[in-house]
């Protein structure tokens, strides 16, 4: 058999090497021979199938087809490339591509010979392609392909929907129908890339629809290759990018607007620039209104797509304006809510009641309008009007949102500008005040600089914040800057003492005391340079500076260098001390001689005795004056010494009065004195005060005879009063009489002798005893001089 089909053996081995299966059947359909590929492809053993009907191999569904083919071949026909499925040993369906022909012997058909190629894998792939094609066709994303010449090859349903072209209308046509002219160069570049086998992703394009309107898309373009990997075309996956483009357009507008709005605080200028941004992407013309000072909306900017029409649009305002309270702009500003008229139909225009406005509206070709408020702080400061006269641009809610955002940003910018101008105005005002302040401060500075007194300022915490040159100099600094830098340096330079020679308590300096609220504190202190031992004196006065609420915010210290004054005082004290000393010596000898004269006169009954006695009296007065002068000098220098002892004030009064009564014949001194209390005091000094009171009473009541002395127990203190009925003291003088060298002058020009220091010394003495001293008096009716002394507390 084999020899009859394949007579040459060498072909037989070749057949067995071939990938296709060679086989033969008898007229009953039984397999007579099979090449070895049968085993490789199907997994069956050849020997099991020889003599078995072919139909056993055929996949059930294909059996009728297979039988039909078998009959046809037996009837003499050839069958070429017919697909029949067979079953493999492991149960898979294999697709065979069968080519069959009748086997003839001497003109008679004796069987069938055939070749079968396993096309299972190829078929599977082919099915997959079909599947993909379906997917592409039913995809929501527009997909189309084109050849290298740009002719469209495929066009899915989504493409039909997006671009408006039916597949049957566009396939075979050139893709240039979709491409706007302005992107010609980009398209050429694209084609180059495709031809080079590179794909392009996320390409943003604007294509033209069948209705000539434009559609933004995002495309991915991939090259198509044939079996030989040659580029034969490109497939375009497109995506409608309208929303994204709109968002981008909005973002672009808002970004630009923000830039414009923040570029300057001259908001009229910026709004003029802003409205130009609307053209042409957002509006065919636009306008900005701002509420003016009188509360009326004034249009401050207008822009038109056609520059020629800007003037015309500007004039519209004058003609028709927004004075009408029913106008859209006025309403939007009043309500603060945006208005949108997405589609303005001719009917709508015709329904405008006002003829002028109706005509205008028609002339403006209004198709769609948006008006948004310029909002700031929830207030509408104005409005932006978007007008579309393009049929294809109808404002929608999403557009309105963008416009509203623009309105908010512009409103904020106006508000910012206003705030800025207010701030600037305030700033200018402050600068003006600042200049004036600076000027006066400079002037003050010059004054302070040249003032001889040291002036320092401490803040509320006591920190030194200002010092003039004099203050620095007084405190031992080379400059006031140094003083402010290192205010404690002076403490190490100087030893400071009070007038009484005590250490200065720095927490108690007048500045500190003023901060604590003490009124007009002051202090005199000396400071001794530790190196040079030079002693200088300063008087420090502090005055508070209060803020509007009365709180102390700073303290001014005035430091007076009183060294020279102190030196003069010291010299004066020395002088008085020496002078009184020098006076005392001759007085002493005069007294002595007078004593001798008196005893002589007494012995010899000499009539000059009374003269001598008068000399003695006068000498005593002179002695008193000298004592007063000395006391004064000692008071001034703080050298008046006190020797305290406990004694009966009542007894003292009696002694003093008795002594004084002897010296006056004219006055009668009456003592009311029932108090038996003791005081701790300097007896001599207190008697000095009493003598002063009594001699004054005598002196200032020359025409009266009566003087009353009263001692009263006032609990913690005893009170001594000396009353006269003389000339009295004027109200104004009640305080002054305790001053140094003050003397009461009677209107009658009668003068009273004396240095005017007796009461001054008395006050110093009583104050040192922690008592009080004062006078009650009526002019012309006499005076009552009083002092108190604390009673002695017995210590155990």
């Amino acid at each position: 058999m084999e020899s009859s089909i394949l007579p040459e053996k060498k072909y037989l081995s070749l057949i067995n090497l071939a990938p296709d299966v060679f086989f033969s059947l008898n007229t009953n359909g039984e397999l007579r021979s099979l090449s070895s590929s049968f085993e490789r492809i199907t997994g069956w053993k050849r020997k099991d199938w020889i003599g078995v009907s072919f139909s056993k191999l055929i996949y059930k569904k294909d059996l009728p087809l297979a039988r039909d083919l078998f009959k046809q071949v037996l009837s003499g026909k050839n069958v070429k490339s017919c697909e029949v499925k067979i079953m493999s040993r492991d149960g898979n369906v294999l697709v065979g591509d069968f080519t069959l022909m009748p086997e003839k012997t001497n003109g008679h058909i004796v069987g069938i010979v055939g070749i079968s190629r396993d096309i299972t894998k190829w078929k599977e792939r082919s099915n997959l392609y079909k599947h993909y094609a379906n997917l592409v066709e039913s995809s929501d994303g527009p997909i189309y392909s084109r050849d290298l010449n740009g002719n469209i090859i495929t066009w899915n349903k989504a493409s039909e929907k997006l671009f408006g072209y039916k597949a049957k209308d566009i396939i075979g046509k050139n893709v240039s129908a979709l491409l706007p002219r302005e992107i010609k160069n980009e398209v050429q570049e694209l084609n180059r890339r495709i031809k080079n086998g590179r794909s392009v992703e996320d390409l943003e394009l604007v294509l033209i629809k069948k209705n000539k309107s434009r559609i933004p898309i995002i495309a991915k373009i991939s090259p198509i290759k044939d079996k030989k990997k040659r580029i034969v075309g490109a497939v375009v996956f497109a995506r409608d990018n309208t929303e994204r483009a709109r968002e981008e357009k909005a973002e672009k507008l808002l970004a630009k607007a923000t830039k414009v709005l923040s570029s300057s605080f001259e908001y009229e200028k910026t709004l003029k620039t802003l409205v130009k941004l609307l053209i042409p992407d957002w509006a065919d013309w636009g306008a900005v209104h701002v509420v003016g000072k009188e509360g009326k909306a004034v249009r401050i900017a207008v822009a038109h797509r056609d520059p020629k029409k800007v003037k015309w649009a500007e004039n519209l305002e004058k003609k028709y304006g927004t004075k009408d309270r029913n106008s859209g702009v006025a309403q939007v500003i009043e309500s603060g809510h945006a208005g949108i008229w997405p589609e303005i139909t001719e009917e709508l225009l015709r329904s405008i009641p006002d003829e002028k406005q109706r005509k205008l509206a028609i002339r403006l070709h209004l198709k769609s309008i948006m008006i948004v408020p310029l909002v700031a702080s929830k207030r509408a400061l104005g409005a932006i009007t978007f007008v579309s006269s393009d049929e294809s641009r109808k404002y929608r809610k999403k557009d309105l949102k963008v416009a509203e955002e623009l309105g908010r940003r512009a409103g904020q910018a106006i508000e910012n500008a206003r705030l800025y101008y207010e701030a600037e105005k305030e700033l200018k005002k402050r600068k003006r005040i600042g200049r004036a302040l600076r000027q006066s401060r400079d002037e003050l500075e010059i004054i302070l600089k040249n003032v001889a007194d040291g002036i320092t300022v401490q803040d509320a915490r006591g920190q030194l914040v200002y010092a003039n040159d004099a203050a620095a100099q007084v405190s031992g600094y080379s400059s006031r800057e140094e003083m402010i830098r290192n205010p404690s340096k002076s403490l190490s330079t100087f030893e400071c003492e009070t007038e009484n020679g005590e250490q200065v308590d720095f927490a108690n300096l007048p500045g500190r005391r003023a901060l604590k609220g003490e009124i007009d504190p002051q202090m005199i202190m000396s400071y001794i340079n530790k190196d040079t031992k030079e002693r200088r004196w300063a008087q420090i006065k502090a005055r508070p500076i209060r803020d509007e609420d009365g709180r102390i915010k700073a303290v001014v210290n005035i430091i007076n260098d009183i060294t020279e004054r102190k030196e003069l005082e010291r010299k004066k004290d020395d002088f008085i001390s020496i002078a009184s000393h020098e006076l005392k010596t001759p007085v002493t000898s005069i007294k002595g001689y007078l004593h001798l004269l008196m005893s002589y006169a007494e012995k010899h009954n000499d009539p000059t005795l009374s003269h001598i006695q008068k000399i003695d009296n006068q000498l005593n007065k002179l002695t008193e004056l000298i004592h007063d002068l000395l006391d004064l000098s000692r008071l001034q220098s703080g050298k008046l010494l006190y020797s305290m002892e406990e004694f009966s004030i009542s007894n003292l009064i009696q002694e003093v009065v008795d002594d004084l009564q002897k010296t006056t014949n004219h006055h009668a001194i009456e003592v009311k004195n029932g108090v038996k209390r003791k005081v701790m005091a300097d007896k001599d000094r207190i008697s000095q005060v009493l003598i002063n009171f009594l001699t004054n009473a005598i002196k200032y009541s020359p025409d009266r005879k009566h003087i009353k002395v009263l001692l009263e127990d006032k609990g913690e203190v005893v009170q001594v009063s000396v009353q006269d009925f003389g000339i009295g003291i004027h109200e104004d003088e009640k305080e002054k009489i305790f001053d140094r060298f003050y003397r009461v002058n009677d209107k009658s020009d009668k003068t009273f002798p004396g240095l005017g220091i007796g009461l001054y010394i008395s006050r110093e003495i009583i104050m040192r005893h922690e008592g009080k001293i004062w006078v009650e008096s009526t002019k012309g009716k006499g005076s009552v001089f009083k002092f108190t002394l604390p009673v002695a507390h017995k210590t155990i």
Partner: protein
Amino acid sequence: MKKKILVVDDDEAIVEVIQLILEDQGYAVVTSDNGDIFDLLEKERPDLILLDVLLSGHDGREIARLLKKDVTKKHIPILMISAHPTAAATASDSGADAFLSKPFEIKDLLSLVSKYTKKNARITCIS
């Protein structure tokens, strides 16, 4: 025997008037117008010294101090006299027995002189 009193003062008038007054009262008086009184004291042996605080060339207080240190002389009472206001304190510091401020009352001078000469008499009596 008359009590002897040494009056030391650089003011002639004072020395003279005190001398006159005391002599009038029956005292014997020796005088010095300066502080060099130690030789004089050896010679005269006074019962009381009236000593001015401020002497030209000498300090009365210093003299008083020296006298009070000297065993042979410290028994002599010293009545210090001064015009200086603070002298009272320094007088007692320097060991003076009494102090009299210028200008003084003659009666005060006499009572002090009398007091200290009697006192001294009593002491000498005992010794």
